[in-house]
C-alpha cells in the first residue's frame, strides 16, 4: 500500500463509523448531522458557499500579499542592517504571542466592518511566518559563499538576487505554506465579528440557525480550500526551483 493511501483509508473508515453512529441514532441528528446530510447541505448551498468563498479568498489573498511584500522588505532590511534586526525581531515575536482573536474585535471597532480589519488580522497572523522563514534563509547562506562573491566584487544587491534570495526560497516557501492556511482561517475569524459576506459570515448565520449540517459543510469547504492552497504553494515552489529536481537525474 503506497503512503498516500493510509490517510484515505483512515478517513473512509471514519466517515463510515460516523454514518453508522448517525443511522443507528446514537447521537441525535441536530447535534451531529450524518455525512450524507452534510453532503446534501454542501450541494444545496454550493452557489451560496461559492459566493462567500470569493469574499473570503479575496481577503485572504490581499492580506497574504501584503504580508509577503512587507516580510520581504523587512527580511532584507534585517539582513542588511543589524540594528533593524535587533529592533524588529523581538517585536515580530511579540506579535505572535498576542492572541489574534482577542485583538480582532478592537480592530473592528477601530477600522469598521469593511475589508480593513480583516486584512489587518490576516497580516498579524501571516507576516511572522513568512518573515522568519525568509530572514532565516537570507542570513544562513554559507559565509564562504558570500566571501567568494565579495572577492568577485559583488554588491549587496547582486548578492541578494544571485545568492541570498535563491538560497532562501526553501525557507520562504515553508513560511508561505503555513501563512497561506493561516490567511484563510484569519479571514474567517475576522468575518465572525461582522461583515456582509464571507465564509465567516455564513458560519455565523448557520450557527445561529442551528443548521449543523451547513456548519459541517462550511468547515469541510474551508479545509478543502486550505489543502488546495498548500498544494498551490508547493507547486509554485517546485516550479521556481528546477535545480531541486535535477539532483535526482544525475
Amino acid at each position, binding site marked *: 500500500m503506497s503512503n498516500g493511501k493510509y490517510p484515505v483509508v483512515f478517513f473512509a473508515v471514519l466517515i463510515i463509523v460516523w454514518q453508522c453512529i448517525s443511522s443507528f441514532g446514537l447521537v441525535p441528528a441536530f447535534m451531529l448531522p450524518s455525512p450524507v446530510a452534510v453532503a446534501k447541505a454542501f450541494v444545496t448551498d454550493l452557489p451560496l458557499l461559492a459566493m462567500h468563498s470569493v469574499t473570503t479568498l479575496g481577503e485572504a489573498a490581499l492580506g497574504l500579499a501584503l504580508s509577503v511584500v512587507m516580510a520581504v522588505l523587512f527580511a532584507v532590511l534585517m539582513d542588511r542592517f543589524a540594528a533593524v534586526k535587533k529592533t524588529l525581531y523581538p517585536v515580530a515575536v511579540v506579535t505572535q504571542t498576542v492572541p489574534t482573536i482577542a485583538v480582532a474585535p478592537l480592530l473592528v471597532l477601530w477600522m469598521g466592518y469593511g475589508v480593513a480589519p480583516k486584512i489587518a488580522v490576516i497580516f498579524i497572523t501571516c507576516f511572522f511566518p513568512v518573515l522568519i522563514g525568509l530572514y532565516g534563509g537570507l542570513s544562513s547562506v*554559507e559565509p564562504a559563499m558570500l566571501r*567568494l562573491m565579495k*572577492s*568577485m*566584487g559583488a554588491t549587496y544587491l547582486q548578492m541578494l538576487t*544571485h545568492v541570498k534570495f535563491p538560497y532562501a*526560497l526553501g525557507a520562504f516557501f515553508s513560511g508561505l505554506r503555513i501563512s497561506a492556511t493561516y490567511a484563510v482561517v484569519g479571514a474567517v475569524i475576522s468575518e465572525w465579528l461582522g461583515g456582509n459576506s464571507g465564509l465567516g459570515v455564513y458560519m455565523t448565520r448557520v450557527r445561529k440557525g442551528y443548521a449543523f449540517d451547513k456548519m459541517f459543510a462550511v468547515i469541510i469547504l474551508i479545509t478543502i480550500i486550505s489543502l488546495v492552497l498548500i498544494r498551490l504553494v508547493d507547486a509554485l515552489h517546485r516550479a521556481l526551483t528546477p*535545480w531541486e529536481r*535535477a*539532483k535526482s537525474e544525475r
Partner: protein
Amino acid sequence: MDTDNRVVDGEILEMLPTRPFFEARGISKNYEGEPVIRDVDLYINRGEIVSLVGPSGIGKTTLFTVLSGLEKPDGGAVFLAGEDVSAQAGRVGYMLQEDLLLPFKTVEENVAMPLILGGEKRRPAIKKVQPYLEAFGLAGTGGKYPAQLSGGMRQRAAFLRAYLFRSDMMLLDEPFSALDALTKSAMEQWFHRIARETGVTALLITHDIEEAVLLSDRIYLMGGHPGRITAQVDVASAKRGDAAWGKGTATPNRLRERPGSMVAPEGIRERPDGAAVGNPWVWGGMTDALRKIKEDVTEMVMHGV
C-alpha cells in the same frame, strides 16, 4: 632585486629589472588580539605557479583572505603589478576547497557569474563562456546543475569561474583536497596542462607536498606561531634538468576527459610578450629529482624549519 628572466634555447627572451608581478610585504594579521601571521613576505613572478605548504592552522587561509583583499592586513601591504591593492577585493581570482558553485544556477550561469557581476547581461555572458567550457574539459555540461556533476568536474567549473574573473593572478586555496585520490591526480594533471596553456600566475595552498612539487615552480613553507614563511624551495630548476622539459606539447598521461583541442580559445589572454605561456615542463609524474625535493620539503615541514 628579482629579475624576471626566462631562458629558452639559451637565449634570454626578457631581462626586465621589474618588481615581481604579485608581492606581499611584511603581512601581519591578528584575530581578536592574537597574532595569526607575522611579517609574511612572498612574491610571484608572472606565469609562475607557487605553492604554499605548511601544517593546518598555521594561518595559510588567513594569509589568503588578506592577499585576496577581503580583509585588511594589520601590517604590511599587497602589491599587484606594482600597485598597492591591500584590502581591495576583486583584484585577484580566488578559488576554495569547496567548489562553491551556486546550486540553483546551471554550470554555464555559474561560470558566467564574474561577467554578470561585472554588469554583462545573462545571455551574452553565457554565450561568451561557451568556448571556455570546452577548453576546460566541461563540454556538454553547460546546461546542467552543479549537483549533476562529479566532484572533479565541479572543481573545473569553479576554477574556470575564478579564471574568467581574474586570469592574471589567482589564489587557489586547497582546490583539489576535497577530491578522492584518483580524481585528485587527474585534476592535478588537468590543472598542469591548463596552467601551461593559459599561462596563469597562481599561488596555491596545499597540504599535499607531492602536489606542490608536481604543480609548482617554487614552494614556500609556512610554520611557527604566529605563522610566517620559514623556507623557499626551487622546483623549476629540477624540472629544467628533467628530460621532459620543453618536449612537445602533448601530455604523456592523457586525461580520459581531456578536450580535443590544445589551442586556447579566442579571448584567453596571452602573455603580453607573446612568448610561450606557462611552464614548459611536460607532465611526467614524479621523477627522482622531484622525489628528492619532496623528501626535503617533507623533512622541513616535519622539523619545522
